[in-house]
């Protein structure tokens, strides 16, 4: 009964305090809320910026851990024909359970456009290539396994090339005519990828799958004379060992006079450390600074008002408030208030980071949008509550320590 009225009394009292000092409370809490929101947004923004850079690097060099394999003749330095390497790689991939690997051959197509025949450089790859490089399509979709069996080979073209043929709707199955010395081959456009912005109409490039490309007789030279690179996306933990074995097996299969070279190409290739570490540390530093500033504001306000609060504590104690009771009220008031402010800050951060405009924009740029930084939100909330406790601790401790008469004299 006494405990109950004591508890309710404390809440009534703390609520009254918050009401009376609403300007001060609001000011300090805005600081806390903004700090937590800023912390969370900075961390989220940092993660997004880092992810943008990572995905860009990955589009170029593949996702960690991506390895490139070539085989050369030791005498002439000429590369081994793909037809000799492919079966070895295929068997090894099967054995080691490597799902993502692709051949990569560069060639060119002579494509009939309305104003003449143009050279289009073509990357001849296997289906998993897009997963390894996070290839994004503006329209249509990446090759599927079924594309290998199409009558007319499928082609994915750059947006510049697509614009040259009048940006047709892919649902109408637009085609291109590829001119070869023997005949004209019709290929179906099934996807469009974005051309780099600085090419201004000149980026005439395309992707095709290896087998349909060969079957249609599109290679400009016998395909065994083309330089073919093999690419593997391996689990980073076993990548070193696995890539070494792959190259050993390929070299072994080719026999005397050949050697296989394997190297890592993704953005983590050169340093064991995270290349974005500095960036992440900088973001973390800014976040901590923001939080510290918020905390400082709160503690500052607490210090400025402590004198005046101690006097009020003295008055309350002369009317029967025990030190413990005042301690509890003061702590509850500041902890609950800052926790609420922190929660509001997190909500603001969620509203900023997860609103439809931002997410739509992010979806256009990123494949893997980083999750909302729950850890940053939790840290911010905990830090805010801690700072609230700290700011409340001063008057609360005074309430416990000081003699009533001294409190009244202040």
């Amino acid at each position, binding site marked *: *009964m*006494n405990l109950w*009225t*004591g508890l*309710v*009394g404390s809440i*009534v*009292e703390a609520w*009254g305090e918050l009401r*009376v*000092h609403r300007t001060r409370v609001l000011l300090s809490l805005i600081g806390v809320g903004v700090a937590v929101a800023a912390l969370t947004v900075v961390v989220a923004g940092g993660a997004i910026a880092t992810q943008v850079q990572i995905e860009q690097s990955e589009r170029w060099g593949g996702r960690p851990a991506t390895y490139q394999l070539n085989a050369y003749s030791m005498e002439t330095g000429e590369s081994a024909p793909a037809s000799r390497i492919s079966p070895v790689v295929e068997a090894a991939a099967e054995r080691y359970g490597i799902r993502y690997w692709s051949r990569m051959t560069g060639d060119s197509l002579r494509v009939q456009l309305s104003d003449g025949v143009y050279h289009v450089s073509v990357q001849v790859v296997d289906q998993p290539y897009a997963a390894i490089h996070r290839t994004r399509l503006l329209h249509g979709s990446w090759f599927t396994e079924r594309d290998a069996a199409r009558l007319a080979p499928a082609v994915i073209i750059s947006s510049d090339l697509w614009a040259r043929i009048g940006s047709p709707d892919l649902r109408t199955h637009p085609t291109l005519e590829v001119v070869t010395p023997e005949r004209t081959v019709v290929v179906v456009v099934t996807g469009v990828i974005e051309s780099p912005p600085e090419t201004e109409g000149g980026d005439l490039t395309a992707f095709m799958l290896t087998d349909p490309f060969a079957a249609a007789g599109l290679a400009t030279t016998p395909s065994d004379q083309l330089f073919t690179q093999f690419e593997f996306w391996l689990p980073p933990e076993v990548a070193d060992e696995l890539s070494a074995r792959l190259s050993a097996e390929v070299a072994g299969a080719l026999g005397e006079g050949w050697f296989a070279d394997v190297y890592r190409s993704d953005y983590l290739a050169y340093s064991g450390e995270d290349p974005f570490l500095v960036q992440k540390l900088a973001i973390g530093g800014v976040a901590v600074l923001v939080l510290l500033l918020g905390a400082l504001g709160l503690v500052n306000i607490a210090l400025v008002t402590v004198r005046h609060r101690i006097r*009020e504590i003295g*008055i*309350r*104690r*002369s*009317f*029967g*408030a*025990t*030190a*413990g*009771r005042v301690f509890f009220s003061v702590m509850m008031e500041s902890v609950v208030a800052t926790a609420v402010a922190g929660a509001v800050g997190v909500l603001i951060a969620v509203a900023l980071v997860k609103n439809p405009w931002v997410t739509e924009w992010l979806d256009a740029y990123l494949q893997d949008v980083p999750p909302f930084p729950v850890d940053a939100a939790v840290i911010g909330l905990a830090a805010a509550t801690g700072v609230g406790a700290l700011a409340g601790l001063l008057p609360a401790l005074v309430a416990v320590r000081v*003699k*009533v*008469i001294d409190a*009244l004299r202040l």
Partner: protein
Amino acid sequence: MSFLRLEQVTRSVDLPDGSRLEILRGVDLEVAVGDHVSIVGRSGSGKSTLLNILGLIDTPTSGTLEFDGIPLERLRMGARDRRRGRDVGFIFQQFNLLPRRTALENVMTPLLYAPGRQFWRRERLATEMLERVGLGARLHSTPDQLSGGEQQRVAIARALVRGPRLILADEPTGALDVETGARVMTLLDEVAEATGAALITITHDPNIAAMARRHFRLDAGVLTELGQPVLAGPPAAPSAEAAL
């Protein structure tokens, strides 16, 4: 039965210049339940200090104090706080109202620390008490909106609202005109009478002092009981009536 018993109580403070200031010297005092005591004395003679000691706000430097039959040292801090809340009603010389809280909130404050019924009925009790001191129309005014006399009456209402057994009034009529002062003193007297509380009043006003049954004078920290109310000058009307 004595509610308060002081024996050879002294209170001294160390001044910044290293010297020692003896505020109270060897004070003996017994106050029984229902007593009405007045203390007069010049400014700086230690009246407020004595009152603070009686109300467990301050502690003697030496000597013994028994509160409700319990020696002070046997009361730990929390117990002292609770007893103070339950048994003592303070009317401070400087009012000590909580700024920015309404009269009602100020008067409700002691009830926040009361158990059970008093806590739950705090708004009713506080309103009634403010009505009794004539502030029924100013419940929601904050101290800065009240005159000095009105603030003093809020302080009085706050002191009485828990029905204390010991009312300590430090110049309770200092800010009031003669008529209001007399009314407020009558109220204090009535409440003390009705609840059987002991009332200790510090005052400069001989007429107010005359309302008490026992009279003390504090002189440079030395407390002496006066046999009869000593009135300066010709007897004033109220005391003449009282003498009849």
